[in-house]
């Protein structure tokens, strides 16, 4: 489908990193789920890994401007958002799939994506095309007229993906996008992520290490609200092949994940 590229889209960005955090602390309930996090993310697909409660979802929510940082500095798309800057401008460039994808059950797929496009302030004349493209990208073209309540869990997840990519956001935040997808659809979703990563900063929080290897350009490993490892996927593989650990099963990637976590905890413990 052909689309006109506006001057704004081809203009060079005025910032070095779409996401830049320094000493970021974000509260989840009473405790700090993100606690002194330093992170810089460029364009590409970034896999956010970590054990349960490491602060992945809280970090994603902070990046989505839904959770307000308690302290530290957070800059999104060149705008500081921690001190109450112009959130509206930042949010225009944001696409977000929350972990719990709340939706309106009696909306059809097309109506829902249209509604999100309206929320996202996509210019009215671009909405029909943008919505159709988003629905096509997640292979829901044949179900565009179905109500959300009639869809299966995996299809709903794909509606979530469609609403996140509608309007071509610059910063795309996906919290466990592949949950509930069948193997074929998972492969398609990962392909979509790779495709998006060429001109978008995609942050994918996930538990599935294989997804990271399949779709991501680099890995951010979180532990207790801090970055335990940030580097290319090859770094994860290298850590996994280094020392054979009989205690940890799974593939090279799982072993690398465990080794990097342990290394980080040893380092933190010795401080």
């Amino acid at each position, binding site marked *: 489908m052909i689309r006109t590229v506006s001057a704004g889209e081809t203009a060079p960005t005025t910032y070095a990193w779409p996401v830049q955090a320094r000493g970021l602390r974000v509260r989840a309930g009473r405790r700090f789920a993100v606690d002194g996090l330093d992170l810089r993310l460029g364009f590409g697909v970034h896999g956010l890994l970590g054990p349960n409660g490491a602060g992945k979802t809280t970090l994603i929510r902070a990046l989505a401007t839904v959770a*307000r940082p308690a302290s530290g500095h957070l800059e999104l798309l060149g705008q500081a958002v921690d001190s109450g800057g112009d*959130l*509206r401008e930042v949010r225009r460039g*944001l696409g977000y799939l*929350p972990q719990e994808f709340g939706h309106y059950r009696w909306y059809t797929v097309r*109506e829902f994506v249209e509604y*999100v496009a*309206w*929320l996202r302030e996509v210019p009215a004349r671009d909405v029909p095309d943008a919505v159709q493209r988003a629905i096509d990208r997640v292979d829901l073209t044949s179900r565009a007229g179905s109500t959300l309540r009639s869809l299966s869990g995996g299809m709903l997840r794909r509606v979530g993906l469609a609403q996140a990519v509608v309007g071509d956001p610059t910063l795309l935040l996906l919290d466990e996008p592949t949950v509930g997808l069948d193997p074929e659809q998972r492969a398609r979703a990962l392909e979509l992520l790779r495709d998006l990563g060429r001109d978008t900063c995609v942050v994918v929080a996930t538990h599935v290490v294989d997804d990271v290897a399949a779709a991501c350009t680099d890995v951010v490993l979180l532990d207790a609200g801090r970055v335990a490892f940030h580097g290319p996927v090859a770094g994860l593989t290298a850590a996994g092949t280094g020392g054979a650990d009989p205690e940890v099963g799974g593939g090279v990637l799982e072993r690398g994940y465990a080794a990097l976590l342990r290394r980080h905890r040893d380092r933190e413990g010795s401080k």
Partner: protein
Amino acid sequence: MTAGHPSQALLDRYATEVDLPPDALWAVEVHLDGCAACRARLADAAVDHAPSVGELVDQVWAEVAPVVRAEPPVRRRRWPVLSRWAAPASLPWLLTSVLVPFVAMAMDLIAATLPVDPGRPSVLLLVAPVVPVLGVATSWSRRLDPAHELVGSAPRAGLGMVLRRTLVVLLVVLPPLAVAGVVVGTAPALWLLPSLVVVTGTLTLGAYVGVGPAAVLATVGWVAAVVAPSLVWDGFPAVLGPDTTPVWAVCAVLATIAFVLSRHAFRHPVSYR
């Protein structure tokens, strides 16, 4: 070509592909790409001079037509404007806040038939100032919106959205209140100003503590401070007397000023709870 469009003779030659040098062929082709009028002329030329092309087109069309026609018609949105103005999940709450005045009206009508103190205040009058707040809570509250994460992270989130949703709530809630008031015999002047003050106050407070909690606070506060005492002691509440209108007017002005001052807060997650 400098004249703009290829001549008819050139198009005829293009259609039959006879005796046309490559440079002319390319030039005509580029022109046809951008000129619908010449494409139409070419179609006529093809019918006249190159029957084989016409046959080919018919054949392709016969193959493609079933697929093209099978494309499902795009359904129009069922509620095109409504979802832009009202919170999509607010319907149950709006219905509730429409029902409340009629319940209060029924209580008043029943009470009128009973031999009780005639100076007793009308239940409808007592609850009227907080009824709109029930609906306002739906306009900007995380708990009542399943898609709150999406709404809260959208550029549309902010004062404009809160205001248009509040306006819809008032348009839906105030007429039933007025109708019930007429039936019971309560002057709208007594409760309209207080209810606007409570709504504005709730929104202003909501900018800092969240509109949902602010609505709960306002409702509980009103019931505890005004409704309960006057029902228990059967007294007409002083705050709703006819002579308090100037005080309420001053409150309305103050609340509006405070609201305008806090307008930027609605873009932040704090107001959306």
